[in-house]
């Protein structure tokens, strides 16, 4: 992986940061949509080398964080059944539901297994014909094709003891929801490169036009993120609102067409709840009728579950960019990565965990954007 060092070079990073500083004349709030980018920003300290006027707002793009509580609770209920082998990606195991997490279910005797590829869950189902095997199929457009493939393979090969608890979410409706939320301060977006690698990006153009907001498709390495910010700032300073692809080594305009065909065949778009944010119209996928017999929610009838969310947790405000994680009252007190109240503290890519883990030496206050802009106005 030689390219890693190539996109982490300290000198180039400083040059990019210098160029950004020369371009900026006033404060801007930019949102990186994807949790992977949030992680990269905090882990590498990108925010520390940016000029003060640039405020990075950490968006809702962490699949672990935005999976609704009721889905976690359904997962816990299904995983606790003695007839079930419950398969999940590793980082979902510590996400708190109303009562405990998948680790607790596992310790209490539930057969919970970590898989690296959704197709492994189908394999497990084939190997255990007398058990029900359930895959927790969550995530954005990035993880959806592999989950769709698992369902399709199970369908085509009649692996009827397999099912999926599906809760996929989509990026463009989230961008729309943020732009339309009252008090929105986001002036530009870094869109998630991996998502666009699957879906392509032409459908982002109407968002730029409608909201007059620049959207730059950005990768995850430090230099990718810095370059995304640089391009976003150049647009903002010159008053343009274009769609730009800053990640051409991975993303093409048409995306992965085979994956899109598969997604279209297996999933249909529906309204979805986002944890901490609420319902966003047409922002998720569920299985189409042809595949409904593989829908774990129907198979196990878990519709009547009552959820109980922490009253302290402000993950929704964090995900919308209204507050920084360390402005939440519970941050680092009642809520830490070992005692998470919200999913944003659980996932390594969650904004609260990223702040807690890597940002413990950053000052408590978020940059005061209004004061900064008043100062700039004074100087002008």
């Amino acid at each position: 992986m030689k390219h890693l060092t190539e996109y982490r070079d300290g000198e180039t990073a400083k040059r990019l940061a210098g160029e950004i500083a020369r371009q900026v004349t006033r404060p801007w709030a930019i949102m990186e949509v994807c949790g992977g980018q949030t992680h990269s920003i905090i882990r590498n300290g990108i925010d520390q080398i940016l000029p003060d006027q640039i405020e990075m707002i950490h968006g809702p793009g962490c699949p672990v964080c935005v999976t609704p509580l009721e889905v976690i609770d359904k997962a816990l209920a299904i995983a606790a059944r003695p007839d079930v082998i419950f398969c999940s990606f590793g980082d979902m195991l510590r996400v708190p539901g109303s009562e405990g997490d998948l680790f607790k279910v596992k310790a209490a005797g539930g057969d919970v297994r970590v898989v690296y590829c959704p197709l492994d869950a189908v394999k497990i189902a084939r190997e255990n014909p007398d058990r029900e095997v359930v895959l927790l199929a969550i995530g954005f457009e990035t993880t959806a094709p592999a989950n769709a493939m698992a369902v399709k393979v199970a369908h085509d090969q009649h692996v009827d003891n397999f099912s999926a608890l599906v809760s996929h979410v989509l990026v463009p409706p989230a961008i729309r929801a943020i732009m339309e939320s009252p008090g929105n301060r986001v002036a530009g977006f870094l869109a998630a490169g991996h998502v666009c690698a699957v879906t392509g990006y032409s459908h982002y153009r109407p968002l730029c036009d409608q909201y007059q907001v620049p959207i730059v498709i950005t990768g995850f390495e430090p230099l990718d993120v810095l370059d995304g910010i640089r391009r976003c700032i150049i647009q903002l300073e010159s008053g343009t609102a274009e769609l730009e692809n800053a990640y051409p080594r991975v993303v093409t305009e048409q995306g992965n067409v085979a994956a899109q065909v598969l997604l279209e065949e297996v999933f249909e778009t529906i309204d979805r709840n986002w944890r901490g944010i609420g319902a966003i119209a047409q922002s998720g996928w569920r299985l189409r009728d042809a595949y409904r017999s593989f829908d774990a929610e129907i198979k196990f009838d878990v519709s009547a579950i009552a959820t109980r969310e922490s009253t302290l947790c402000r993950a929704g405000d964090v995900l919308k960019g209204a507050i920084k994680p360390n402005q939440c009252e519970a941050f680092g007190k009642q809520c830490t990565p070992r005692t998470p109240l919200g999913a944003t503290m659980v996932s390594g890519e969650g904004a609260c965990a990223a702040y807690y883990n890597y940002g413990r030496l950053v000052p408590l206050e978020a940059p005061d954007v209004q004061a900064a802009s008043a100062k700039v106005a004074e100087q002008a």
Partner: protein
Amino acid sequence: MADDSTSNTPRDHGDKTIEFSGLVCPVPLQDYPNIILGHGGGGKLSADLVQHVFLPAFQNDHLAVLGDSAVFQLAGVQLAGQRLAMSTDSYVVRPLFFPGGSIGDLVVNGTVNDLAMSGATPLYLTAAFILEEGFPIAQLKRIADAMGAAARRAGVAIISGDTKVVERGHGDGCYINTAGVGIVPDGIDIAPNHTRPGDVVILSGTLGDHGMAIMSVREGLEFDAEIRSDSAPLADMVAGIIQVCPDVHTLRDPTRGGLSASLNEIAAASGCGIVIDETRLPIHPTVQSACEILGFDPLLVANEGKLVCMVPAESADAVLNAIRSDKHGSGAAIIGRVVADHPGVVVAKTAIGASRVVVAPIGEQLPRIC
């Protein structure tokens, strides 16, 4: 030494305070009513068990030091100034055989290394087996042969043992516990709380090889090149270090929880801050890319043949050379320094010239979703 900003100031961090974003954790530590896998991960959950279950029950000064092994004198017995070191460890690794070694090497090297980290010359080991009904004797023989070979390599003898068998389904094939004793030479006093501001941090080689070797076979993941465990005995390396620097302050082998757990333990025990330079961390490229793919941090991944040491700045070059001349230390590097600032906190300088806090892991690392 190559690091420029080393200061030899005594421990003056007492009057300095630092803003930790209001960090306090008032929540009682019993987050889980039952044992979960993470309690064995070498991170904070493991430490919880020690702090809340074992220490209060066992209560004694040797245990309270929380070293890799306990160093003590036998009451009334004169050993010409020498002291004994004693350590124990249990091994539940899966799979039992992996690229670069087996549970047999691990049990010997692991206990030898725990003793060596207190500066002891390891002498005798015990071995206790918990076998599952149905376990193939041919495999047990392979394991025993590996143990014998590893013991001879490390210059120790396995002088006592025990075997128990549990019913089928009540074990995982083969668990092994080892205990060991060694002798600490007169005048050698190595412990995590001896770390001082100004010390140089030296790592003996690449990070994460063992953990990723186990991951790759356990999960059937294939990478560009085979990743081999670094399992190795380190007593000779430690002897070499002590020869050039009898005043070595702290030694630790970063096993479960990785370098991050070890550095955080040392920072906590000594009340010093530690700054490491991320660009200087030796990491094998295949291990690096495997970690990237799975979303693992190499700082948190287990090693079985590496040590990290804190030595006075004036001895740093000599110690580095001593480690490099050992056959398990060719990849050694100076990776950071100990500071009086931010007591108890480990900070990494990142490649782009910023910094971040390196936290101790909670339980086990979890492969991430995307």
